[in-house]
């Protein structure tokens, strides 16, 4: 076993250890054992950092991959299949080592931050235990080398998010939110499970490597449609976990969880798992499946952005912004901008975690006020939070010099390239939605910054007896907080253990971490280490797509001389030879190429859109040229549509939830009335028959018996008359009998 594999298993198991210790012993430990959680995560991060260093910095090879597995379930010599085992295993490649470092770092920071934020909670120890099992599950997803174990950890992430979202379970809204999150995820999961089953049923293995090898060898026995279906179904898992349309509804509600949890699971890890998973299965996605993914991502990005602009709850804005950004990542994968999407995954994880933790600091300082309308002027009181929050906002909005700029630009460039390659038309909708959402992002983040940090404090404006007010207190109050007005002097900067994570995360939102050129992420280590893998089901695969002319790889290379696009672009770099990557698939190569060509186009358009968005935010909120309230009234239907989140919750409630309950009640009625009714009816029939039978028995059967007895009796009485006891009579009768016999015998003789 490779030493890195051993280390990665240690990293995986450490948070589980933290969970086990804390769930059982937290009440017996000093400080409820929070130092154990932080310490263990610190160790895990240190080891992950070492793995990252070994793999990314020292090895610096895009094709780096080591794996190890063991037999988990041995089904013996299965008839028709042969020896069949289900294996579990660990894989470490560049993506894994980056994710490993990212997840453990953010988890560590969230642990640290929570020692401040959650201090004094009555279930303080249990909270850290839950963080532990969550981190464990997430690391499991990252390290899995097969579909089955990824599904296992996928569900465990669902469980741990259930526990964390519903941490304040006394609140009805939290209990609702956790259930909703779990169920929405499960809907996605059954799709994912079916996708896994399609692939398994063909190859009798769950291992990524073996499935891909089999697919590449053209051993897929079902039609092309099944393969596309498998891709889309697997993607459904991502739709659930990464909160893509139409299963995005759980994520905003999940803000009921403690705010650091939102930073961990709704910004950096759990929601990223979906994107990560699609990246893992990227090579099995057929062009049709990719189109579905691209459109889903674009719709999600756009829809969530339109909702975010009207939300008043500071965390909900961030939640919808997360949904929107996840849409970007999914869009990126769909259009084939693989590296860009994963790049955005990582950059977004850091700046969004920073934003969530920053909002937590604000909420903490504001005594659990979450409504931005009653904030304002906080920059004077919370300079550290202000600085880091602003930096992360710039990254989210995608301004140059930030990490978000590079990654978002790379995705949008890929989208343009994709639209060109696919022949334009409807496919241009994807970049258009992407750019438009970029503008909206800049707008709502500008609005948020302004409402929260600038101007004067508006706490005194808060209506005292407002329903809204009460509702928000219900949202926020995990301590029995009074509803008096927050006094401004109560607002203060947070302590060091909450500030340090903000600073670290904000630092990681700056461009130089990822690339020396602030305008081009492609020149950085990330994009070089994470390169688009060659598809195993592309058009070049003869077995897939019967209609297409078989093209061998060799011809392809000749047909597309520039296939080694990423390396060629970065030509003079030393890593060029190492990074050389040839695509077996023409479509893939063209898209990547066109994406690179569109690089500057994307930069121009997105910069313009971002500037537009920010200017609009300034016009509305800083210069007050446009009054937001009047505008809201003027376009009231649109405003309400956005404020009410496109009414998805209402639609789902009216259709799926009410429908399921109705069906449940109908079936339950059917069960007790019809099915059981038939049973009871049969029983009654049988019983009635028994009564009939009884009558029959008494009158007919018994009658027969009695009749027989009667007959015997009568006959006996008659016969008794013959039994006189006199010998003479007997002799006469004997003679008569003999005579009769002779008569009978003679007649037989004659005839």
């Amino acid at each position: 076993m490779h030493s890195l594999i051993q280390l990665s298993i240690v990293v995986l198991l450490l948070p589980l250890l933290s969970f086990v210790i804390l769930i059982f012993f937290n009440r017996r430990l000093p400080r409820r054992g929070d130092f154990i959680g932080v310490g263990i995560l610190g160790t895990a991060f240190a080891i992950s950092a070492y793995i990252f260093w070994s793999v990314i910095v020292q090895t610096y090879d895009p094709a780096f991959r080591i794996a190890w597995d063991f037999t988990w379930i041995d089904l013996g010599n299965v008839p028709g299949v042969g020896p069949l085992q289900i294996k579990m295993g660990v894989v470490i490649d560049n993506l894994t080592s980056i994710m490993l470092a990212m997840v453990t770092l953010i988890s560590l920071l969230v642990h640290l931050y929570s020692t401040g934020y959650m201090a004094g909670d009555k279930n303080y120890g249990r909270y850290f235990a839950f963080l532990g099992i969550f981190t464990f599950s997430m690391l499991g997803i990252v390290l899995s080398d097969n579909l089955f174990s990824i599904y296992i950890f996928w569900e465990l992430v669902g469980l741990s998010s259930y526990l964390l979202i519903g941490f304040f379970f006394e609140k009805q809204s939290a209990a609702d939110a956790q259930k909703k999150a779990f169920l929405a995820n499960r809907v996605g999961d059954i799709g994912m499970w079916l996708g896994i089953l399609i692939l398994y049923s063909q190859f009798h293995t769950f291992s990524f490597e073996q499935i891909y090898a089999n697919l590449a060898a053209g051993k897929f026995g079902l039609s092309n449609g099944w393969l596309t279906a498998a891709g889309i179904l697997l993607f459904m898992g991502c739709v659930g976990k990464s909160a893509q349309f139409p299963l995005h509804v759980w994520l905003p509600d999940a803000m009921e969880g403690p705010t650091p949890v939102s930073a961990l699971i709704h910004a950096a890890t759990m929601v990223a798992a979906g994107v990560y998973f699609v990246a893992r299965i990227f090579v099995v996605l057929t062009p049709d499946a990719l189109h579905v993914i691209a459109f889903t991502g674009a719709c999600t990005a756009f829809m969530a952005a339109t909702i975010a602009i009207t939300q008043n709850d500071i965390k909900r804005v961030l939640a919808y912004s997360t949904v929107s950004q996840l849409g970007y990542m999914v869009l990126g994968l769909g259009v084939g901008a693989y590296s860009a999407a994963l790049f955005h995954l990582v950059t977004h994880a850091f700046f969004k975690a920073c934003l969530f933790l920053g909002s937590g600091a604000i909420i903490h300082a504001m005594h659990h006020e979450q409504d931005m309308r009653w904030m304002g002027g906080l920059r004077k009181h919370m300079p550290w939070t202000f600085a880091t929050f602003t930096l992360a906002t710039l990254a989210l909005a995608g301004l140059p010099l930030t990490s978000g700029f590079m990654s978002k630009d790379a995705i949008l460039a890929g989208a343009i390239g994709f639209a060109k390659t696919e022949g334009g038309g409807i496919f241009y909708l994807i970049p258009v939605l992407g750019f438009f959402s970029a503008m909206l992002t800049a707008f709502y983040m500008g609005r948020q910054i302004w409402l929260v940090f600038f101007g004067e404090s508006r706490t005194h404006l808060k209506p005292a007896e407002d329903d809204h007010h009460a509702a928000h207190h219900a949202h926020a109050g995990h301590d029995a907080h009074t509803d008096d007005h927050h006094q401004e002097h109560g607002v203060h900067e947070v302590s060091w253990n909450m500030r340090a994570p903000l600073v670290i995360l904000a630092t990681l939102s700056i461009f130089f971490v990822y690339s020396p050129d602030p305008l081009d992420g492609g020149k950085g280590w990330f994009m070089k280490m994470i390169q688009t893998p060659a598809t195993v089901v592309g058009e070049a695969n003869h077995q897939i797509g019967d209609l297409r002319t078989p093209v061998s790889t060799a011809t392809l290379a000749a047909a597309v001389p520039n296939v080694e696009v990423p390396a060629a672009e970065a030509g003079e770099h030393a890593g060029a030879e190492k990074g050389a990557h040839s695509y077996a698939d023409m479509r893939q190569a063209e898209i990547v190429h066109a994406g690179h060509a569109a690089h500057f186009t994307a930069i121009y358009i997105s910069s313009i859109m971002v500037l537009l968005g920010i200017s609009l935010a300034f016009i509305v909120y800083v210069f007050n040229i446009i009054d937001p309230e009047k505008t809201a009234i003027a376009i009231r239907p649109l405003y309400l549509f956005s404020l009410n989140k496109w009414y998805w919750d209402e639609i789902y409630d009216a259709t799926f939830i009410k429908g399921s309950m109705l069906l449940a009640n109908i079936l339950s009625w059917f069960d007790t009335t019809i099915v059981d009714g038939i049973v009871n009816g049969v029983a009654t029939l049988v019983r009635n028959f028994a009564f009939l039978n009884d009558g029959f028995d008494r009158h007919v059967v018994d009658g027969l018996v009695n009749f027989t007895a009667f007959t015997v009796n009568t006959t006996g009485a008659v016969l008794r008359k013959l039994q006189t006891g006199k010998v003479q009579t007997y002799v006469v009768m004997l003679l008569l009998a003999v005579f009769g016999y002779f008569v009978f015998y003679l007649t037989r003789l004659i005839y």
Partner: protein
Amino acid sequence: MLSLIVFLPIIAGLVILAVPSSQKQIIRIVSLLAALAQGVLAVLIWRGYDPALPGITAGPGGSPLGSFQFVEKIPWISLHLGGFGSLNIEYFLGVDGISITMVILTALISAIGVLSSWTIQKQVKGYFILYNLLASAMMGCFVALDFFLFYVFWEVMLLPMYFLIGIWGGPNREYAAIKFFLYTLFGSVFMLLVMIGLYFSVTDPVTGNHTFSLVAMATQSNYIKDAILGPANVFWRYVAFIVLFIGFAIKVPMFPFHTWLPDAHVEAPTPISVILAGVLLKLGTYGMIRINFPLFPEVFRAGMYVIGIFGAINIIYGAFCALAQKDLKKMVAYSSISHMGYVLLGLAAGNSEGMVGALYQMFNHGTITAMLFLLVGVIYDRAHTRQIEKFGGLATYMPVYAALVTVAWFASLGLPGLSGFISEALVFVGAFSSVTTRYIAMVSVLGIVFGAAYLLWSLQRMFLGQRKPDAAYDLVVGEDGHEHIHFHDWNGKLDLDGRELAMLVPLMLITIFLGIYPMPVLGMLTTSINKLVQVLSPVVMSQM
């Protein structure tokens, strides 16, 4: 060994017979000791079991030895019936992969059931005598390899169950008991006919006599060609399969023969519910695997699709009915129906993955559902109601109970890391890999979502949020200023007490352990299942 494990409870029952009925504690302890001894024997059998031997059919030379293990075979009843030949009934016990897990499960659940019966106060002596009789009969069913003997155990099981529900049950107990009894009896009458038909159709290859041996019956070459259930008599073989299947399906219970189950569960006392769900339901599917399918493999192949559909109906219909229930125990009862649907689906797949999954699901459903019913019993003891709406916010006041409920509920909804997941996953893997049941599997996955829906919803209504205004308990502020809850008529410990933990924690540990490392159980199954799959279908179905 097997005779001992079967008859130990009856011996305990005889001992109890001699104990005066006022000595309740002695009666309980005798039963517990018998159950524990049974458990020790089960462990010995488990340790001594060789997973390399396949079972299912006879070993080399037509003898059960070399295939089955712990075999005990002696002539039992031998009647010469003149022109009809002779009636040979054997006392024939043995285990293979498909019964060994059930033997272990039965021993486990019986012991848990005794612990759970500790609180029974009414006619303790009679209760435990019947309980021990039931425990013996259940165990006997799983190890009997002679159809006649199986039938005897099967029928003997009915009687104590009838009285245990009918005397120690809830308000509507008599209706539930008679329903259970008649329903099952209805099934077993057909079983009797098929059994006699089989007897006259099969000869023992060794002796040449007719036989009730299930081992001989599982080999198609032992059938007399023109006999009533011989291979030539296709029509009657189909009829026999169907009526036998219905007989077992009632026990499973399979839609539409399931309505006795919710009634029986709601009325039965907690330990009897545990036995019923934990072991008795398994007898239905065990009967299918042991008798129905291998004796009529060609009919099974023809009927896989239909069985699969009934499995899917069970899964989804059971889940929806559970969603609508207001009584917690009834909800759990319907969840049982739903989960037994997975067993049917796995069997219908007819391939190793599906069948291993089905058998593993039987084991896991036994432990998990036992846990669910015990947990329902815990709250019923305290609150004297099971209406879900009468609770709320319990997690704050009964944290240990809430934690165990959460684990059990999640085990039931098939969370990875807990044993139920692996069996359900294998069932789906098998059902999807088989062309016959592929589309059925695609529909059945809905059960995963709705299973989660009813469980999480009940969890939320009972344990999360705040106490409801009309809750079955009062909120009192204690001297230390903390809020407590108080149940009327309950003087015991508010949260789980030692006895309850002793019942629940072992089951929970098993559930977790087998969820992480399933091979201790699966390892015993696979050889037999692979053999069974070959017996069922010479042409393998899991291939495309």
